[in-house]
């Protein structure tokens, strides 16, 4: 805030009138006399201002709101854990990359000291550019496109697997699934959303799958579709015509709902629908919109550790804020959003200042071992990327997501091939 005042005076010095100059001088004197400049930023406000950018409306609105639940409960949990006060400054990206960029700029202008978000690779790329230009740290909660942390950015950090990591983890879990169910599908049709995330996943699958000789299937067709599609008749018809054994799907939420309905209408019953690492099929709205049709869909995604201490705290806070809802329907969204804000708060505590450079340096030195999500400690590499985030195989059973693999954390046994939905 002090910097902003100084800039205003300096910028206007040459061409503003005497009155404006004196007013500015007076304001500065007031600030100085109040002793604000004498104290470190840590003591100045006692609060870390976190700008939270999420797609709370638009095509990804429901998932954005799900992430927001994590952001909303984070300050109380963090105060309890670290004794740090966090002030959220929320902004809606409206599922639009340009809006994400302008909202990020606005949050920084309004005093956000660190940005968190935005559940979308396209938006994350845009916000990353803004943060680099303005020198403000940015902690990504969810976004998988690998290029975001391949640009040599100094202020951008990501605690979420990249698409190649997601796909590698997801495909390994598919192997485990086939082994556990003693099945060996020969063919798959691959459908993916045509956005930054979907393209990154498609690229990763194209590069990784041919190298994995432990998987028994081959892709007979790959097709992209519009993530904002209102009708997927053509896409499903084309996929059905391939007669593939199962559907490998990289989706979002709304399209996953439309696609599942269309499969039923066109009477296409493959052995199963498996996502190698995308959102959609474990979200609460998926169950609400589809009812029994949501059963047996499989998502190999990063998930929370059910017995972790942080999970317990977050679960309690979640139930308090959302008495009619359950954490399991927002696991990934809430978990990674809480962890992103935790990273910022933890760094703020160690840096004892919210100034951009020391705070950024403190984020770089992060080493959080007691975390909520599955995987190793939150520790950024030289590119600002956390390595070692793990996935679990989640299957929709009895209208809720259940961990079915890995076996040591499984809550139920996997079902594959899946029964016809009419017998579900």
């Amino acid at each position, binding site marked *: 805030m002090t910097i902003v005042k100084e800039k205003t005076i300096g910028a206007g010095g040459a061409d503003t009138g005497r009155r404006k100059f004196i007013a500015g001088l007076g304001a500065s004197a007031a600030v100085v006399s109040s002793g604000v400049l004498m104290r470190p930023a840590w003591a100045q406000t006692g609060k870390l201002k976190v700008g939270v950018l999420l797609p709370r409306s638009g095509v990804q*609105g*429901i998932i954005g709101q799900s992430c927001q639940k994590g952001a909303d409960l984070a300050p109380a949990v963090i105060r309890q854990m670290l004794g740090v006060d966090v002030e959220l400054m929320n902004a809606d990206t409206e599922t639009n990359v340009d809006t994400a960029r302008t909202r990020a700029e606005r949050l920084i202008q309004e005093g956000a000291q660190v940005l968190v978000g935005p559940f979308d690779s396209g938006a994350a790329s845009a916000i990353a550019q803004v943060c680099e230009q303005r020198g403000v740290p940015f902690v990504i909660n969810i976004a998988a496109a690998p290029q975001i942390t391949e640009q040599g950015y100094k202020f951008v950090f990501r605690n979420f697997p990249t698409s190649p990591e997601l796909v590698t983890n997801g495909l390994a879990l598919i192997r485990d699934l086939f082994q556990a169910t003693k099945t060996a599908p020969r063919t798959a049709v691959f459908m993916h959303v045509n956005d930054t995330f979907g393209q990154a996943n498609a690229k990763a699958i194209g590069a990784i799958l041919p190298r994995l000789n432990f998987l028994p299937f081959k892709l007979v067709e790959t097709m*992209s579709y519009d993530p904002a599609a209102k009708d997927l008749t053509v896409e499903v*018809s084309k996929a059905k*015509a391939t007669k593939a054994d199962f559907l490998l799907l990289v989706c979002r939420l709304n399209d996953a*709902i439309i696609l599942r309905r269309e499969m039923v209408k066109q009477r296409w019953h493959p052995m199963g629908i498996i996502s190698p690492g995308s959102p959609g099929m474990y979200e609460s709205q998926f169950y609400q919109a589809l009812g029994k049709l949501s059963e047996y869909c499989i998502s190999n995604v990063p998930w929370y550790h059910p017995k972790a201490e942080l999970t317990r705290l977050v679960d309690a806070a979640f139930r308090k804020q959302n008495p009619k809802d359950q954490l399991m329907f927002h696991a990934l969204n809430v978990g990674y959003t809480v962890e992103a804000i935790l990273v910022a708060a933890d760094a703020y505590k160690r840096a004892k200042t919210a100034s951009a450079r020391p705070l950024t340096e403190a984020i770089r030195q992060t080493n959080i071992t007691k975390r909520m999500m599955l995987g190793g400690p939150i520790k950024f590499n030289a590119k600002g990327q956390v390595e070692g985030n793990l996935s679990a195989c989640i299957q929709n059973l009895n209208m809720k997501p259940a961990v079915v693999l890995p076996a040591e954390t499984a809550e139920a046994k996997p079902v594959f091939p899946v029964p016809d939905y009419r017998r579900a």
Partner: protein
Amino acid sequence: MSVDVANVLNLVLAGVLTGLVYGLMALGLSVIFGVVRVVNFAHGEMMTIAMYATVMLFTALNLDPFLAVFPVAAGFFVFGYLLQAGLINPFVTRPEHTQFMLLVALAMILVNLLLMIFGPDARNVQLDYLLESIELGPLLIDRGKLYAALVACATAAAFFLFFKYALLGKAIRACADNYLGGKVVGLNVKRLYALTFGLGSACLAVAGCMMVLLVDVTPVLGPSYTLLAFVIVIVGGLGSMAGALLGGVLIGVSEALAGLYFTPSAKSMFSFALLILVLLFRPQGLLGKRP
């Protein structure tokens, strides 16, 4: 790439059925423009409201969308009448850009109101028959789409008969043909304009009720349907009722086939390619009259 014939037939049929509902939506726009000569830039947004009304009636009263057509269309007739009489009539003789700004502003207000009231969540009607298909040899016909298309055809036929044979319909057409002439022979042109806007809105409401059977509704759906309606009426011929239906079917089928033979994510591109072709070689639209 080999594509089996049954698959092609199924997709063409799906394209025709969806296209008929698109056509009904565009018919409302065509009727309003054909008579009042005002382009309704809030067309898609108004249809979105009709879709929400249908979903609300289903949720609150368990009213099937086929029955919801009557109250929703009646409500929209009144809404359209009042909108024209109270807001748009003063703009009829003003420059076109002021009409454009008025209706774009209205569209933005409607989208934001919907966002405030309903939030961004997608909503739909959950009816068992919407997941069923009718099997006819190699054809698999989506029941929801079939019924929606039948309602679209019936509504379009009713409009056609009204404008061709009913006294009021003839009076409206007279105003459309000659504004000054209509006034000279004693027609209350402003009132007839309001009635036309009401009828166009009712037509749009029926399309909205049927569209709920095909897609989930969100507040931000409106602008894309406004654009789609424009593409359809320009392809079919602005002001032509039959042209609107033909345009809808052509767009539906072209999207289906483009998705099948090329990449599905680029299927909308073909609608716009069709639009450019029509603008180049038949600017008045396929069934439109030369000005």
